[in-house]
């Protein structure tokens, strides 16, 4: 391809004249740049390239580092701020935060209490269900009839409450035995569960009910037999169970 700056042909006479002048010009001396000047130019050329290639392709590094530092600082700031807002309060005792281990122990204890509370609720529901199975009388008459009937059967056939009392006693005794054995083996004493702590009270109430029933049956038997000792027994009974609703047979004025 022809270069755009290719020589255009100019008039031949001018070319001849230039050739003649050029011959004479060529015979002039040819001064050269000083060596010191050459060295200065070459050094300058070398420095210009060295400046550019000293960190090739790393011109973005300062900007990137600046942005990264700001990003990390901002994220740390927000993270600490969030921690401050949502941090769970530590367990305090006498105004001081407890150590981490004690806080964990406290948390475990709270969990156990929650579980015990749930199990007691379950037990209450179960107890209500059993009592409804027994058709507990709500009116005084039906209650008296039930107690009299129970008293009559008491000496011959054990009541369901007796079985229940026995079962509960067995369970409590087993629990106590297990706890005693654990303690005798050197294991640290463990807190009683709610079921274990409620069981003796239930046993006591059931035992009292059975005892009252038995004693009423005995008083009725003495009265029917004409033994005057029934009055003395009845007084003892009312002292023992002042709130107990007596059957009609024992409420006679002549008692």
């Amino acid at each position, binding site marked *: 391809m022809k270069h755009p700056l290719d020589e255009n042909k100019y008039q031949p006479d001018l070319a001849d004249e230039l050739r003649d002048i050029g011959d004479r010009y060529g015979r002039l001396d*040819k001064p050269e740049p000083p060596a010191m000047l050459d060295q200065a130019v070459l050094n300058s050329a070398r420095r210009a390239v060295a400046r550019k290639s000293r960190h090739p392709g790393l011109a973005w590094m300062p900007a990137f580092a600046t942005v990264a530092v700001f990003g990390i600082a901002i994220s740390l700031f927000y993270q600490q701020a969030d921690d401050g807002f949502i941090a769970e309060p530590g367990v305090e005792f006498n105004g001081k935060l407890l150590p981490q281990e004690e806080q964990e122990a406290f948390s475990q204890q709270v969990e156990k209490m929650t579980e015990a509370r749930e199990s007691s609720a379950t037990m209450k529901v179960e107890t209500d269900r059993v009592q409804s199975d027994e058709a507990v009388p709500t009116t005084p008459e039906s209650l008296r009839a039930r107690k009299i009937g129970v008293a009559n059967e008491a000496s011959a056939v054990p009541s369901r409450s007796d079985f229940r009392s026995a079962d509960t006693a067995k369970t409590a005794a087993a629990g106590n035995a297990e706890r005693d054995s654990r303690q005798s083996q050197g294991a640290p004493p463990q807190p009683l569960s709610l079921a274990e702590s409620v069981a003796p009270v239930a046993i006591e109430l059931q035992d009292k009910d059975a005892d009252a029933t038995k004693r009423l049956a005995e008083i009725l038997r003495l009265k029917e037999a004409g033994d005057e000792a029934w009055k003395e027994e009845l007084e003892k009974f009312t002292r023992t169970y002042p709130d107990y609703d007596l059957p009609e047979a024992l409420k006679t004025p002549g008692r």
Partner: protein
Amino acid sequence: MPEVSDEKLMQRYAKGDVTAFNELYQRHRGALYRYFFRQVSDPVVANDLYQGTWEKVIRSRNSFQNPAPFAAWLYRIAHNHLVDHFRKTRLSSTLESGELKDHRPDPSEAAIDDEQHRQLHEGILGLPEDQRSALLLKLESGLKVQEIAFATGVSHETVKSRLRYAVSKLKKSLVT
């Protein structure tokens, strides 16, 4: 093995090849220096103009475009640098106003060997700046008319006209 072109060398230097610049410098150092030396005839000023031109070449290495011959691009920078120098020293207007004889260098300082060389040297210095520049670009640097036009920023017809006037004046000065 064919010689690597000036343009290729300049491109290699723009990419960081210092040896390419060394080669390029060796090719053009003498002609460029004499271009300035014949214009101002003062070695100190010629040195400054010469070094300044190469500094501009180094700084402008990434702006060099291949379609333009390197020599034309180099002498365009040199010519503009020289014009700036003339503007600053008002030498250009002084030369064109016919006060050349007052500023002519001592022939002995220019180391002219014989009378004919002295006459030629003085004749070149006595030319107007634009004609002298066109003539030196032709005789010393060997540029073509179109390249001289590119370097000096005028049309090639203007270059031919300046060359014709310069040759005519030189012949007269040499005969007399």
